[in-house]
């Protein structure tokens, strides 16, 4: 168990910087998820924590000690890889036992630990099998078992679920979450899937181009994104963005009307964000944003329908409640209530506040 601190952590590959001096504190027992688009430096950061990648600058502290120069094995950290990387020439039991390679436990104790771990992960009947005879989900469990068996200071996961199908992914998400609750060990988890981030994290770290954009709880990030990127990254479908202008305390958007909004003090061009679930099809009176547009596509999901609209120049997604499926080509009205608009500076893309 340990607190992990990143202080101005830098990674350079030759002349190119992959990680630009990031600061982050991961509390003991916390489940932290790094999200961001491909190539933003998530894996690199994780690998620096693991000790698989040299640190080019800054400090990495585990349990209060600077570990920059320590070998992976001296950091007592376990890692689960995207490809599982379980050894094909060993049985499941041997694979799990490999996590205890450096442990000084007796043979019998090791065996006991392996069996316990197998039981927790539902692998107890498969301990003598080889990886070739396992399903993808089972292999992933073996990889987790190998990490778990040794009671590490922290678990590192690098996109562990990306090779599984959607259903298995949902199941493994829950299992990892339960495992965390059970063991209480610090977990650092990398993914580019914002659903994984939202559902599992205590704390989400949004990265982009080697920088941390925002750190916060899932609700934090959803409710108060600091910029356009985070706003669009968190939440599915992505937040709609339309251009607007604030002048003299009034918001004007091409093809839409806004009224009764408590606007932040700002003058000039803005981006107005509204989540598809807050942009509802139908006529409404009252304050907020209302507009009408042409239906370009519909995605009926059963409980609701996603309606793609052309709103002036902008493309937006709105939701129609219940089983209403508007005709393609028809014109529908949409409405978003007060408090559901996110305003961003059009140039800096930084958040201005909600209205």
């Amino acid at each position: 168990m340990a607190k992990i601190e990143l202080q101005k952590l830098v990674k350079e590959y030759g002349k190119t910087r992959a990680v630009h001096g990031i600061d982050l504190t991961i509390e003991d027992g916390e489940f932290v998820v790094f999200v961001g688009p491909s190539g933003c430096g998530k894996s690199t950061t994780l690998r620096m924590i693991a000790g698989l990648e040299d640190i080019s600058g800054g400090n990495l502290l585990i349990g209060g000690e600077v570990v920059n120069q320590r070998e992976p094995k001296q950091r007592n950290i376990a890692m689960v890889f995207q490809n599982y990387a379980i050894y094909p020439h060993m049985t499941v039991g041997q694979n799990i036992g490999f996590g205890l390679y450096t442990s000084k436990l007796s043979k019998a104790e090791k065996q006991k630990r392996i069996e316990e771990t197998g039981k927790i992960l539902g692998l107890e009947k498969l301990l003598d099998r080889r990886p070739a005879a396992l399903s993808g989900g089972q292999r992933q469990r073996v990889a987790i078992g190998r990490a778990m068996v040794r009671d590490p200071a922290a678990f590192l996961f690098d996109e562990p679920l990306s090779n599984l199908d959607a259903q298995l992914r949902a199941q493994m998400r829950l299992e990892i979450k339960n495992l965390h609750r059970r063991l209480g060990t610090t977990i650092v988890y990398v993914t580019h899937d914002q659903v994984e981030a939202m559902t599992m994290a205590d704390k989400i770290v949004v990265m982009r181009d080697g920088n941390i954009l925002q750190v916060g709880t899932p609700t934090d990030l959803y409710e108060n994104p600091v910029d356009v990127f985070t706003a669009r990254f968190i939440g599915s479908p992505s937040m709609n963005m339309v251009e607007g202008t604030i002048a003299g305390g009034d918001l004007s958007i091409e093809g839409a009307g806004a009224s009764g909004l408590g606007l932040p003090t700002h003058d000039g061009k803005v981006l107005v964000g509204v989540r598809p679930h807050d942009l509802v099809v139908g006529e409404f009176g009252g304050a907020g944003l209302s507009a009408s547009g042409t239906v370009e596509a519909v995605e009926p999901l059963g409980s609701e329908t996603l309606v793609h609209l052309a709103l002036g120049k902008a493309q937006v997604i709105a939701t129609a409640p219940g089983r209403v499926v508007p005709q393609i080509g028809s014109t529908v009205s949409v409405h978003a209530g007060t408090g559901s608009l996110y305003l961003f500076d059009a140039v800096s893309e930084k958040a201005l506040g909600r209205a």
Partner: protein
Amino acid sequence: MTVTSTELKANSRDIRPGRIIAWTLLLIGGLIMITPLLFMFSTSLKTSGQVYDLRLIPAAPTFDNYIKVLGDGRFMQWFLNSTIIAVTVTISNVFFDSLVGYTLAKFEFRGRYFIFLAILSTLMIPTEMLVIPWYLMSSQLGWLNSYWGIMFPGMMTAFGTFLMKQFFEGVPNDFLEAARVDGLNEFTIWWKIAMPMVVPAISALAIFTFLGNWTAFFWPLIVTTSKELYTLPVGISSFSAEASIQWELIMTGAAIGTIPTLLVFLLLQRYIVRGVMLAGLKG
């Protein structure tokens, strides 16, 4: 799999001209290769009087030659010499070629590419040209007429190093990194994780190295002077140096000499086909 097997069935029914040509060529090739072997066995069953009677099936087959050769103490000594040398050199190659190949494949260090090129360039020099330097070196260092003298040029080979490097490049880094995080040292990672994943390559290397050293003739002939140190091929050929050429004995010695190579091949070849690597990665 199902597709190919049905294809095979369909093809075997309608025999196309291309297939006939291919089979004919293969058949001719096969015959060319197997004929000397057949003559070797056939001659080993003939008496010295029948040797120049080129019938494939001997008129009166006899095992006398085998009894004679196996009963000859020198032959057993040569057989033993060859075994010791071929086994030692094979183990050495499997160990060192893999170690160097792995290092070249999986570690970044200054001069890596240059070292690799240097190793490869030795492949371009024919053995015949190296024999004189080897000989001079052996005589300076007192290695002439010893096991070590016979073995040292082959203890590591550029080809083996190259082969192993190529195979180790196919071993995903995730395996090695997972082991690193699990606390293994680099040597153990190589030995316990990487080596088992290239078993097919190791088997191939072992087979080639064993065969090459078992049948090596030129260098052992040059570096040895006393008959007790002859390897099997050198020893067998010395049958011919005595008075008249005793083909039936040479062929008998050669026939017995093929047995270990067959054994090694049968023992190791099943590992060549077994591709174990991919099973541990994504499903």
